[in-house]
């Protein structure tokens, strides 16, 4: 239990759904598949109105190296290719598919019985073709993580089963229900990048998951070490997890974990990698925790990508009285949604419906300089200072204070007695700094 990182906090856990197995939802009648579900370039539509598509058929292609394709989650007819609401907040080009019947799987989806012998390039190719983006929330294209440059040798693969966000239990359920798939995926990742060490980091509030993975690891993958970590937010943040498990600190951006020889994959991603390599199965469904005091019957569901949030909430017993805030993700880093029409995307680990008092926005009071934000910041920043500089639009000073290093985990705003919207201010600073940088780069280019 000594393995940890410095800083962090401990929000109440509220894991209401930890003992509820994933429940497969009935196939949705209509799905909305946005061309952007990941970090990077949007993908390009391959289908047009009235095209017939089968389950698992590619409907978009990658729009660059840092981009992934998407696949039809159901069998049906393309009704539209147009803008639609999206969990990221702005409208995105979206392929709307109306279901015509049960799953008719696309012919490209076949099991490779020799999957264990697949070479690294084949694995990368299959992962890329499966449309894999990180399933922990950030949705970084998986094949990019699996393709480190030659001068950056990877020696450690870390599987993220921390699930430190309050309320969310989808990773927990995956670890209980698919321990073999997850570890097989981890093994494939290590094989692809040539890493010797494989760690699985799990918070100690999930002893059953630790037990399940340890048992399978002992039997099938002796090289995989399953580690129990203290319950502390943000244990599941990539950099903090690496620090806890290996003692290595990822340098500030633009450095990535691969710069210190690490690749981190979420447990859900591992399962999907395994399915992609063995069955050539694309990423068309995922575990989603539908929870919060704002739904009547919180549960974990297995939902097809593109299913509107409203249907998942319906499956969880509908809205409870006082449902006031709808989130894509957990309460610490999730994004508030204005409508429940938005579809489930590859990074949707949970749908959280909050009621008062959590859902009401507290009035911001002046900073008392109590220093709580400083002591919890896992990046050793002074959040109140950066936030204030950002508020006053002193962006260069904010950058000098490390604004761009902020991982937006929300620990600072969580503990702030003045209820200052620290993350919001810092985000404002970050986007302004980035915008200024882009502008400067363009001018340089133009000159």
């Amino acid at each position, binding site marked *: 239990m000594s393995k940890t990182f410095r800083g962090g906090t401990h929000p109440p856990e509220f894991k209401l759904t930890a003992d509820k197995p994933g429940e497969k939802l009935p196939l949705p009648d209509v799905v909305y598949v946005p061309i952007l579900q990941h970090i990077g370039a949007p993908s390009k539509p391959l289908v047009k109105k009235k095209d017939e598509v089968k389950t698992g058929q590619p409907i978009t292609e990658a729009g660059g190296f840092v981009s992934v394709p998407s696949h039809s989650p159901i069998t049906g007819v393309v009704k539209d290719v147009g803008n639609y609401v999206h969990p990221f907040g702005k409208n995105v080009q979206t392929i*709307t598919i109306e279901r015509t019947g049960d799953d008719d799987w696309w012919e490209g989806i076949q099991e490779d019985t020799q999957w264990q012998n697949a070479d690294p390039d084949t694995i990368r190719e299959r992962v890329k073709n499966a449309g894999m983006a990180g399933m922990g929330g950030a949705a970084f294209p998986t094949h990019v993580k699996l393709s480190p440059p030659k001068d950056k040798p990877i020696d450690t693969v870390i599987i993220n089963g921390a699930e430190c966000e309050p309320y969310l239990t989808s990773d927990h359920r995956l670890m209980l229900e698919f321990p073999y798939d997850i570890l097989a995926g981890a093994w494939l990742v290590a094989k692809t990048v040539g890493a010797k060490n494989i760690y699985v980091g799990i918070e100690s509030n999930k002893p059953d998951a630790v037990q399940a993975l340890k048992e399978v690891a002992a039997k099938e993958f002796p090289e995989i070490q399953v580690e129990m970590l203290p319950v502390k937010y943000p244990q599941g943040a990539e*950099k903090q997890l690496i620090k806890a498990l290996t003692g290595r600190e990822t340098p500030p951006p633009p450095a990535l974990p691969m710069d210190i020889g690490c690749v981190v994959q979420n447990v859900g991603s591992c399962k999907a990698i395994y399915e992609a390599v063995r069955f050539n199965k694309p990423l068309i469904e995922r575990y989603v925790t539908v929870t919060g005091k704002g739904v009547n019957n919180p549960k974990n569901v297995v939902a097809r990508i593109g299913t*509107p949030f409203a249907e998942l909430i319906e499956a969880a017993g509908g809205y409870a009285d006082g449902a006031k805030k709808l989130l894509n993700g957990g309460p610490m880093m999730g994004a508030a949604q204005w409508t429940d029409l938005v579809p489930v995307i590859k990074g949707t680990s949970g749908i959280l419906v909050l009621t008062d008092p959590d859902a009401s926005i507290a009035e911001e009071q002046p900073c008392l300089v109590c220093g709580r934000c400083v002591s919890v910041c896992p990046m050793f920043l002074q959040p109140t200072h950066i936030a204030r500089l950002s508020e006053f639009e002193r962006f260069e000073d904010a950058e000098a204070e490390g604004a761009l290093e902020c991982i937006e985990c929300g620990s600072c705003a969580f503990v702030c007695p003045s209820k200052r919207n620290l993350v919001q201010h810092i985000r404002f600073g970050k986007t302004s700094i980035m915008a200024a940088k882009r502008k400067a780069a363009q001018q340089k280019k133009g000159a």
Partner: protein
Amino acid sequence: MADEQKNSAPVPEGGGQQPEKKPEAVKEAAKPADKPVEKPKPPAAPAKPKKEAPPKRTFTLSSSPHIRDNESVSKVMNTVTLTLVPVLIASTYFFGFRSLVICLLGMASAMLTEGLLQKVFKAKITVGDGSAMLAGLLVSFNIPAGVPWWIPVLGSAFAIAIAKLPFGGLGWNPLNPALVGRAFLLASWPVHMTKDWLPAGWWKLSGYNFFSWNVNAADFGIDLSQSSSAASQLVSGLSKGNVPDAISYATPLEMSKMSLATISNTVSSPETSSIIFAAEAKLKYLQTLLGDAFFGNIGGCIGETSALLLILGGIVLIYKNYIDWRVPVGFIGVVGLGGWMLGIDPLFYIMSGGLILGAFYMATDMVTTPITKSGRLWFGIGCGLLTLMIRQIGGYPEGVCYSILLMNLVSPLIDKWTTPKKRFGHATAKGA
């Protein structure tokens, strides 16, 4: 800039199949089966989703995180005030009803001043956050129990009107308002602030009772500048249980300073030996006062009386994470060490004067102290050094107030110097 509200809600555009029902309708209808397929008219998000539930179901928008812990400004302030209540009760016992009235006047004046000024300047009224009440209480704790009623009123009013509000109110003031209030009183009415001491338990003397208001400080005094007759009076009072109540006309620290000066300035000779004896006797007597200082049975400012209760309150606040232990430890540690090096009983030196009150309740004021952990230790050490210097070299018997004020002024500088250079990952970046 209260919250990020994306007032212009994203609107599904383009000519797609989109549900005709507005989100609230979807929720209401709640049957996925009869899902809507038609041209949409998405609802506009209300301008202020957090106020008054809008007629249509839309959801509150704000930046993450979406949960907060249950600390708040008023909770912090009221907890600090609450830990001072035992001290207030003790001082009421020792100094009579009078001292309670003084504290209540100080608090009321602080809150009234804040409320009135904010009303006049049409600012947001923040009297409810508890910080004005706390400032008023702390001002009152820093004045002797024998002062006229208007002293705490003016001190608190000054603290709020001059030291707090003009800078922008809570969170923006560079100096601790309560200490500014005390400094103002000390500069303006030095006689009241330095001569109106009442000895603990004065109200038990004949002619007074617990509720006595009018007191004559001269009733309680012995003049320290006077000769050995006073000294012998002191010595005679040494026998336990017979300590004359009327003895601490000056506070122990003043006596200590004078006594030390007497000893060091007097060349040993038959003529002076009695003076020396007298001075030494005073010091000895002072040391027996130590126990009294700890429990509060000693003369001094209203809030300085019981070191025990102040320390207990401070420990509660440290445990609650409302104050940082580094400040009192650095502050008291340096003063104690300095006292020991100067040949003064360090415990006595710590227990006397406003040090305990200052170290736990004044120097730890979040707003006016550094934000970094190491900076807070330096802040405490700096306060300690300044206090030592003022006590031993300066013209005042007590230096806690000014040393904290001076350190308040440099705390931004301390912050700048102690900001950690190595943020997460910077060590790796350098090594790589």
